[in-house]
């Protein structure tokens, strides 16, 4: 590699480092609070201990037992 190319590569690398330095980051504690809050506000039917059990009638995987849609003539 020529010296000019090596210089250009170093300058490109420094530009990326500068972008990394200027990036706005939040702290781990802030990020953790936001994730914990999200988990606690979105209803999750796979976690019954937190959100309660699903009613059988709301469960799409329960076999339908009541009624066949027929009417007596």
């Amino acid at each position, binding site marked *: 590699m020529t*010296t000019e190319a090596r210089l250009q590569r*170093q300058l490109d690398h420094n530009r990326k480092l500068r972008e990394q330095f200027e990036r706005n*980051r*939040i702290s*781990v504690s802030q990020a953790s609070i936001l994730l914990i809050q999200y988990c606690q506000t979105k209803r999750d039917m796979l*976690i019954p201990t*937190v959100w309660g059990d699903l009613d059988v009638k709301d469960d*799409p995987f329960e076999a339908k037992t009541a009624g066949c849609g027929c009417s007596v003539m």
Partner: protein
Amino acid sequence: MSTDIAERIANARREAEFLKEKIRESRAVLNDAQLKLMSQELAPLNRLNIRIRRVLKGHLAKIYSMHWASDKRHLVSASQDGKLIVWDAYSTNKVYAIPLRSSWVMTCAYAPTGNFVACGGLDNICSIYNLRTREGSVKVARELSAHSGYLSCCRFLNDRQILTSSGDMSCMLWDLDAGVKLQEFNDHTGDVMSLALSPDQRLFVSGACDSTTKVWDLRTSRCVQTFTGHESDINSVQFFPSGDAFATGSDDASCRLFDLRADRELNIYTHDSILCGVTSVAFSISGRLLFAGYDDYNCNVWDVLRAERCGVLMGHENRVSCLGVASDGMAMCTGSWDTTLKVWS
């Protein structure tokens, strides 16, 4: 003349060292807590009642990929028996069985509208199938060819655009109307194994055999963040439901949680007894649970916040190669080399 350039290189090197030190300092200041310690006050999840509700039988060879439709009821699976099958997960009926031109399929995807499915693999091509033709039969709509390596993953943004990742170390965004490549995403130094779209579709994340995950801006095609930490190939990536974080699964037997705004790894999901690779990961709808499929035939359920394993789903007789959670969060589906898919709820 050359001494002038040599001096500029030396100055630039010094500036690089200075910047690296400043970055290290600012990151150290922000590293003020641990997610799993802050989550200790939450009750541990030790009574999950997740069991098999449906078994989808019909494939004749290993299943490599599955993807739920947005309607929470249908899903598509791809097997090296050379078929894509679209299933009704409630009834277990097969709605479509699509024969493929190449049986070496590695990935499949369902368009959000339900109008199309896509697949690809060792043929290096992403094939798009129209499920809702006027004639009523499923037809090949496009064959997207430009990758020079296998197709590892594909995801529709909408009926007009699809993202692909490849063993050629790149990702591509395609226009489906014209059947051409719109953008290319190059920065990985290893096969790209998986990709995931952010909920607002402005970003996507990719995981590769170079052990890194990269976040890409869809408007500029640039890699905006790179995350390291894994010690081996990353096989699967998925966004946390808020879009602010993502999880990864790797051959190093661990899953990890990375946060975009904190720009670092927040949790690692691993255990001394787990020695085999993770093939696939998916979050439950609240983000509290992470389902991970492993080479040892099991699916482990992780408490994302407390970093504890809260369940093991045993039901397959071979490697769990793929899994996904339906968009209403009611069901999770695993696909396996044992030729079956199982729906858990």
